[in-house]
């Protein structure tokens, strides 16, 4: 396991090289870019428009940096000149490259100068300019070496339905080889042709769009149908209308499938989030019978641990640590929350094992105290936890978008459920835990230290909550009240799944997640949530013990 993680880490670090600002770019292109940065706005736009067919990939690199506020103006020979910095996210001083020549910035004696990016003035971009930058990058995308960029670039150009791009796209059709790009290119050309083409070309394009199942072209197709239907019957273009109606139907059918697949994925991912937050509770409440109202604060401890880890790691190892701190934060947040759970068990819960109502009140008090401590220590406002790059973005498979962070949560949920099940079923500790939970006095008779086992079980359950918090820091808030948002959900999952049954918890989490995602498009998020709650109430009327009613010592 460790080697796999390390290998993944190495791959990730290698995959993200620093941009080589120094070597790339033809001399005249660099000159033009440097002129553009300092020119008045109208000229900037003109220069950038001209650069669109330069075919030089450095243009996209420089413009992307500019758009992101990473093109800096630094004094050189008495005047501010455009400079690209080695790593614009760095908090440490880094080297700068002159945009005009690609030289490393140095003072008169040849000593290399370094700059802290945050302290430098970035070149301004107005909205109009950013639009032109984007357009230039789009046009450049036609000749981009990366097929993925090329594919999205050609489609965007096609959607603009502008004659000048239409011609460029048609020219590209003759030389494009990559099948994926070719598909997008055809789609783009077809969309453009709807507005710009000859009548028979329009009909052909309508057909093409249907064959390509073009979501992007759907709006234009619907417009055609609408305008045709508004015309008097005599003037209608019957073949066009028929073809368009057929294409729209094909695309709609396809969309229905995409929606189903997307909803399934989102349901599983929401279910995984619910599962992760409630698994710890399934142990402490489900197995041990402790109503722990401070469970939410254990989640918050996990979230804050991830936050602290990010701070410490970036402070110690620089910004590169952003890419891997999360892997360290996972065990750290487990340990912190487990430790907190241990202290809580020894100081409060141990004294209240046979008095569930008192333990409810006491743990609620603990939850308020912890919440206030977070407020005192971290402030009332939420803190920001940055996600590593490999958790951002998404994988798109035939128009179903699978977010990397969502795939990670599913994987994560599977792993911790497996680990928990293995621990319970295959280890001596798990055997002891089960024995103590089933009959504490009997377990004590055969020589199990029941008090110690309960302590460890509670710490384990709390540690799982910490893991949940660590993951939630990547998709939501970390703040003093973050646990409150999930405590109700997690009790809901554990109760619906059947108290004391891990398998039930898994099924209930997935079921609730799925139902929620399926109802949302129909009823909206508010009514969707209400319906899920009503469904659970009715379900519990029908099966009061939850999905898998279990008998445990504490419930007898």
């Amino acid at each position, binding site marked *: 396991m460790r080697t796999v993680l390390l290998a993944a880490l190495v791959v990730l670090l290698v995959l993200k090289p620093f941009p080589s600002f120094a070597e790339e770019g033809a001399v005249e292109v660099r000159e033009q870019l440097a002129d553009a940065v300092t020119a008045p706005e109208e000229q900037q736009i003109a220069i950038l428009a001209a650069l669109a067919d330069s075919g030089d990939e450095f243009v996209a690199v420089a413009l992307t940096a500019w758009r992101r506020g990473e093109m800096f103006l630094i004094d050189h020979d008495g005047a501010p000149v455009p400079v690209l910095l080695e790593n614009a996210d760095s908090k440490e001083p880094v080297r700068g490259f002159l945009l005009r020549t690609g030289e490393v910035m140095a003072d008169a004696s040849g000593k290399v100068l370094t700059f802290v990016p945050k302290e430098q003035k970035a070149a301004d971009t107005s*909205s109009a300019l950013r*639009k032109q930058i984007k357009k230039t990058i789009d046009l450049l995308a036609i000749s981009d070496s990366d097929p993925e960029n090329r594919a999205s670039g050609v489609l965007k150009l096609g959607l603009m339905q502008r004659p000048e791009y239409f011609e460029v796209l048609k020219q590209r059709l003759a030389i494009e080889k990559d099948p994926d790009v070719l598909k997008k290119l055809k789609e783009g050309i077809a969309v453009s042709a709807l507005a710009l083409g000859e009548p028979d070309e329009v009909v052909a394009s309508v057909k093409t769009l249907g064959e390509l199942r073009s979501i992007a072209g759907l709006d234009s197709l619907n417009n055609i149908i609408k305008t045709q239907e508004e015309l008097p019957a005599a003037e209608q273009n019957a073949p066009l209308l028929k073809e368009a109606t057929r294409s729209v139907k094909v695309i709609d059918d396809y969309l229905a499938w995409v929606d189903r697949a997307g909803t399934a994925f989102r349901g599983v991912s*929401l279910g995984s989030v619910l599962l992760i937050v409630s698994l710890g509770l399934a142990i402490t409440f489900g197995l041990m019978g402790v109503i722990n109202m401070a469970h939410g604060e254990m989640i918050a401890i996990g979230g804050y641990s991830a936050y602290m880890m990010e701070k410490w790691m970036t402070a110690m190892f620089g910004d590169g640590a952003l890419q891997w701190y999360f892997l360290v934060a996972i065990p750290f947040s487990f340990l912190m929350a487990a430790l907190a759970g241990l202290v809580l068990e020894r100081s409060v819960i141990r004294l209240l094992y046979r008095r569930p109502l008192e333990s409810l009140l006491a743990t609620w008090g603990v939850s*308020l105290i912890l919440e206030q401590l977070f407020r005192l220590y971290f402030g009332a406002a939420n803190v920001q936890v940055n*996600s590593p790059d490999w958790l951002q*973005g*998404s994988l798109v498979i035939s128009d179903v978008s699978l977010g990397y962070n969502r795939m990670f949560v599913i994987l994560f949920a599977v792993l911790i459920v497996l680990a928990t099940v293995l621990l319970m079923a295959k280890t001596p500790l798990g055997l002891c835990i089960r024995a103590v939970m089933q009959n504490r006095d009997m377990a004590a008779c055969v020589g199990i230290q029941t008090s110690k086992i309960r302590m460890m079980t509670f710490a384990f359950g709390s540690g799982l909550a910490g893991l949940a918090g660590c993951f939630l820091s990547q998709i*939501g808030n970390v703040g003093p009240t973050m646990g409150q948002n999930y405590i109700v959900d997690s009790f809901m999952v554990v109760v619906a799944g059947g108290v004391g049954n891990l398998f039930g918890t898994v099924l209930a989490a997935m079921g609730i997640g799925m139902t929620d995602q399926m109802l949302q498009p129909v009823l909206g998020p508010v009514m969707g949530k209400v319906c899920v709650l009503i469904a659970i109430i009715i379900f519990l009327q029908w099966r009061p013990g939850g999905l898998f009613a279990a008998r445990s010592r504490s419930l007898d």
Partner: protein
Amino acid sequence: MYLLTDLLTPILKRTLPSVALSATAFCLISCGGGTTSETEEAATPEESATTETSTASTPEPAAASSDDTVKVGVLHSLSGTMAISETSLRDVLLFTFDEINAAGGVMGKKIEPVVVDGASDWPLFAEKAKQLLLEDKVSVTFGCWTSVSRQSVLPVYEENKGLLFYPVQYEGEEMSPNIFYTAEAVNQQAIPAVDYLLEQGRKKFYLVGTDYVYPQTTNLVLLEYLLSKGIPIENIGGGITEQGGQVASAGKYTPFGHTDYQQIVSEIARFAASGDACVINTINGDSNVPFFKEFAASGLTSEDCPVVSFSLSEDEFRSLPTKDLVGHLGCWTYFMSLDTPENTKFKDNFQKWLAKTTVSGIKKDGRVTCSPMVLSYNGVYLWKAAVEKAGTFDPEKVMEALKSGVSFDGPGGTVTTQSNHHLTKNVYIGETQADGQFKVVQSFDSVVGEPFLKGTFK
């Protein structure tokens, strides 16, 4: 001067056993949950002490002001979910009072603030308002953030003929004789933002918000406006609910504290697939974090589909992932980044005041200024100008003076009061930068505040 420490000593002596101790003790256990009833003690001991002063001091018969001071109420949530936003307004109000007192006060009288905690609990706001008006007999109150808290105190102010200044952008459709709205009306925020987007060639608008009165009302007004601008109804995303042939609700709504935006963002991605789309975001508070994280993760960018947010200002950016927000838009009547002498002076003085203030519970590092803060600040100066114009502290006469029109050169430009209880002010549209500031991309000068917009666009 209302130095809290000075006030504290005698009160602590008198009430230490009963109040202060229980307040501190209670504070530890109770202010966390944003729960309802224990809110009175939830403020820090010093704050309770301020409240305590006013109740403990012998009520003065009729006059709202003693010889050399005038009592002014501050009614904001200092605990609970809204505390994050509202404490900033308390801070800026205390700063403004100090600034005015240092310059000689209002008509020779020093301002004596009475700070009470609404504790994010709407009925409690009404109780606290009653206390301010009947027991403390304040001449004016500055307060409220959410529309529901304003509507909860409205009857109290109308019944007792008080005067309330309300500083936070809101949905309009209201004009109480006893409230002065320094806030942005819909036509000073949402409408200019939409105008800007239309100008940028955006043709499809997706509406998303938190499910309560402000987003719902604003989006209904926007729907009418967009239709009047020739945007076909199928280009307005988020869903439209009709009841009895009338549009009852436009847009997609999520509950407060919603955390799962997968479905909505995938809908937006689909909506934006054919280009020229934008999102109008009235999501409030915490939920913006998962929304923007999901938005960024789905690969949508601010060029493909910009999001204009009406509830996010510089103050909120302190706890948001600004990296995911770069290029998205905001629209307010003040930005911290405005480069005017008034704004520079305001920011400098506020930072200086923060550095030396002894009021406890005020966070001193990393503070920013934002539109609701400046509108609170403007409100105090407008009240001062109106009092001086009327020559009395009597709320009714002051309101008359306000309606006749007074001006103040504030940090966001000159503001002038109107007879409809709103302000004429400049409106700015800004793009979010990575450092959590706005860069102005367009400004509209002297926009007249108009609360009643529904049904006016044809």
